């Protein structure tokens, strides 16, 4: 009977398909035969936009660029304090305005060309060129004339404070004393030199689309060089023989895998396709803690998770309301039961222990104080409190936290808020046009200094977005920049933190941690607050 035969045929076809799969050796996925000894397979989050240090802004790009380029100074692998990089030493003038860097002898690019101080000057000219449109050029604005050149107000680059005194000496003249300049250079790629002569071969210097970053073209100064770039598949970097410290580089190669889906990445880790992941899905944290503690990595991360308030919209224009909301969040419970990643509850804006600074101001008083403040503001027991809307960008984590806080506010204060999720760009647009009442936000530090979190709330700062303006705050911030010693500067910062805790233009919730999985064989890796791990020290046991 044809019907029965067809059915049997279909079933057997299905079985053949399923059973005919050869048993596959998961470990061989990334290479032929057994695994080469010193190749690190790194889950890198999303696909990098580009590998030009002067044209990108994200963390996945940072991880790869750090292997391809090195700066004048680099960060110590244990705590990222500035140590000699391409520059073997430097002098700082007494007034803190002139830095003179002495480059090592015999420096070369990865194509063998000599690397000189003029390469740095030409690179800085490129990143400050207005038509390039580099988004991190503002990290060079500390240098005399740089901001003007970048804005197009100055057209003669020789007037900007960069000078190649000779092939091995670079002089940088600042606009005003910048105590954290070396920290910025140590950890941020915007101060890295690019091989301008090589770039020029592929197109105009101020064009981002010349394609000079492709394999076979990209030339760098770091411990590794680019070998392969298959978009959305893998980026491979291999040893750079021309690197000045090549002898001490332990890894032979690093393979970066763009893994923008957390659960997928975790499965790849489990089958041995990855040695390090970029994140760990929330439900897995406890599982790893319980079953594979050696693979779970939880590292403090210099970032703040907060809710931004638009202080022009009632009832958030009353600082008592903002403080009440801030106090009514049970942060310990949030961290312990919802986030589970050993995050630190945040009772102030600045990060405790950031370069030796810990804020003394603290949101204190808990729920009773919150209720008192709310009643004082005219909403006893939450009666009459208008429904405010909390915006967050689509993400399971943000949603869970928002739902938990929504419940806390309802239980503790009798206040009902409405949650609205928005797609990323719509959410950002709402932020930059201040079209929100309350909005979830995160701020990750670009360099290791308390200044990073405090400068945002200045009146004119483009990232303020709360429309909060406090002249006293602005004044003290400027005082801090001109402080004569770190102690004096930190004292000013304490005053700033106190103002922020008192007025609560933003509601700090917790400080980030990075939760991810790592193969215990990975060594030469120390937790740092910026999640930067200089690649030349990393190796596999």
């Amino acid at each position, binding site marked *: 009977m044809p019907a029965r035969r067809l059915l049997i045929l279909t079933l057997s076809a299905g079985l053949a398909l399923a059973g005919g799969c050869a048993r596959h050796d998961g470990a061989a996925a990334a290479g032929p035969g057994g695994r080469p000894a010193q190749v690190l397979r790194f889950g890198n989050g999303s696909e990098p936009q580009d590998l030009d240090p002067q044209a990108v802004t994200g963390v996945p790009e940072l991880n790869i660029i750090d292997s391809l380029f090195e700066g004048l100074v680099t960060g110590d692998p244990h705590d990222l304090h500035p140590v000699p990089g391409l520059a073997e030493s430097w002098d700082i003038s007494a007034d803190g305005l002139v830095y003179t860097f002495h480059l090592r002898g015999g420096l070369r690019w990865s194509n063998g060309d000599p690397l000189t101080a003029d390469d740095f000057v030409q690179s800085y000219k490129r990143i400050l060129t207005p038509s390039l449109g580099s988004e991190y050029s503002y990290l060079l604005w500390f240098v005399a004339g740089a901001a003007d050149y970048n*804005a197009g107000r100055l057209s003669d680059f020789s007037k900007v404070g960069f000078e190649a005194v000779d092939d091995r000496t670079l002089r940088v003249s600042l606009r005003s004393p910048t105590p954290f300049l070396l920290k910025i250079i140590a950890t941020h790629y915007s101060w890295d030199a690019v091989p301008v002569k090589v770039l020029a071969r592929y197109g105009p210097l101020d064009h981002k689309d010349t394609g000079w970053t492709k394999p076979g073209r990209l030339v760098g100064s770091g411990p590794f060089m680019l070998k392969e770039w298959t978009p959305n598949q893998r980026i491979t970097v291999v040893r750079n023989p021309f690197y000045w410290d090549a002898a001490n580089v332990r890894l032979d190669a690093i393979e970066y895998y763009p893994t923008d889906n957390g659960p997928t990445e975790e*499965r790849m880790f489990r089958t041995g396709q990855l040695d390090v992941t970029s994140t760990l899905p929330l439900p897995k944290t406890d599982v790893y803690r319980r079953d594979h503690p050696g693979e779970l990595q939880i590292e403090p991360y210099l970032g703040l998770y907060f809710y931004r308030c638009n202080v022009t919209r009632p009832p958030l224009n009353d600082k008592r309301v903002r403080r009440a909301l801030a106090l009514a969040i049970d942060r310990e419970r949030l961290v312990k039961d919802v986030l589970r990643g050993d995050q630190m509850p945040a009772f102030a804006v600045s990060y405790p222990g950031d370069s030796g600074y810990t804020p003394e101001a603290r949101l204190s008083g808990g729920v009773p104080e919150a209720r008192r403040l709310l009643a004082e503001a005219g909403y006893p027991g939450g009666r009459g409190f208008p429904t405010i809307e909390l915006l967050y960008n689509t993400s399971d984590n943000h949603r869970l936290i928002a739902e938990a806080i929504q419940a806390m506010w309802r239980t503790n204060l009798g206040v009902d808020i409405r949650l609205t999720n928005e797609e990323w*760009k719509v959410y950002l647009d709402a932020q930059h046009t201040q079209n929100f009442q309350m909005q979830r936000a995160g701020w990750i530090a670009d360099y290791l200094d308390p200044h990073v979190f405090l400068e945002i709330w200045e009146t004119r700062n483009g990232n303020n977005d709360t429309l909060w303006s406090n002249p006293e705050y602005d004044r003290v911030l400027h005082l801090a920049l001109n402080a004569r010693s770190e102690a004096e500067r930190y004292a000013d910062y304490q005053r700033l933190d106190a103002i922020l805790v008192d007025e609560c233009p933003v509601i700090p919730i917790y400080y980030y941690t990075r939760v991810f999985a790592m193969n215990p064989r990975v060594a030469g890796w120390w937790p740092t607050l910026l999640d930067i791990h200089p690649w030349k020290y990393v190796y596999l046991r």
Partner: protein
Amino acid sequence: MLRFISHRLLQAFPVMFIIITGTFFMQRFVPGGPFTAEKAVTPEVLRNLNAYYHLDDPLWKQYRDYLWDLCPKAFHPSAFERGLDLKEAFGIDFRPSFKYPNRTVNEIIAEKLPVSLELGSYSLLIALALGLPLGVLAAIRRNTWIDYVCSAAAMTGICIPTFVLGPILVLVCAIHMGWFNASGWYGPIDRVLPCLTLGSVYAAYVARLARGGLLEVLNQDFIRTARAKGASEARVIFRHALRGGLLPVVSFLGPATAGILTGSFVIETIFQIPGLGREFVNSAFNRDYTLVLGTVILYAALIIGLNLVVDVVQVALNPKLKFE
């Protein structure tokens, strides 16, 4: 038939034009742009970026310049030997991507389209190989246990979404059994799980539509006549019933093939496949104007072409139809 096809190809031009225009302008009225980022871009930098990408030109001028770039301006089909470069071959320039400035949209499509085509073709084959027999069986043995089993199998494919089936398959076959990689698109073995996942869902649709369509036809008079004339069951089905019965499947497969060939966002995310499906969605999320237009144009070309094929096949299947 040739006249029909040439008419349809001519109609393709205004259709494409409307699609391009519609997409071009739709994008600009949506909040957020390619440079909207978490850390605010300073006004000077934004000015520079807009100047560089000509985003500060009046909108009609940007539109006109873009259309000109898109127009085929050359004819070097030999360039295809070196790769799928539309710019070299026909002078069609989709411009650089906003999100990935060092790559042009031409390059992105050239890299990713073959992957999606491969994923899609195998999935389609699986869908047909699984779905057609199930549907046909269910129809010819209507309301017997065979029908229930086949229909249930088909329904399972619809009830279990890809974002559930995919991870389950990976967990069972890759992690516990170790037969496959958890993700990636390196060797032939990596094709199996993604294509199976994607194919199963479409197989379910094919099965259900085939069953429905066949049931319609099996009650027609000409089937009764054929049976009365003593034709065997197999002949009745394959020579007479299937042609009409597969009509809804064919109609469905037109746009479905276009969708499956341009990849699936969910499958590519779960299995980390470097295909075009993700770019369709991500480019919209990134407000990557040029890449959105590139993917839309590609998809439109496929839709137009496949619907044309479907219409031709429909006429071929049904002798009563004529080309109009």
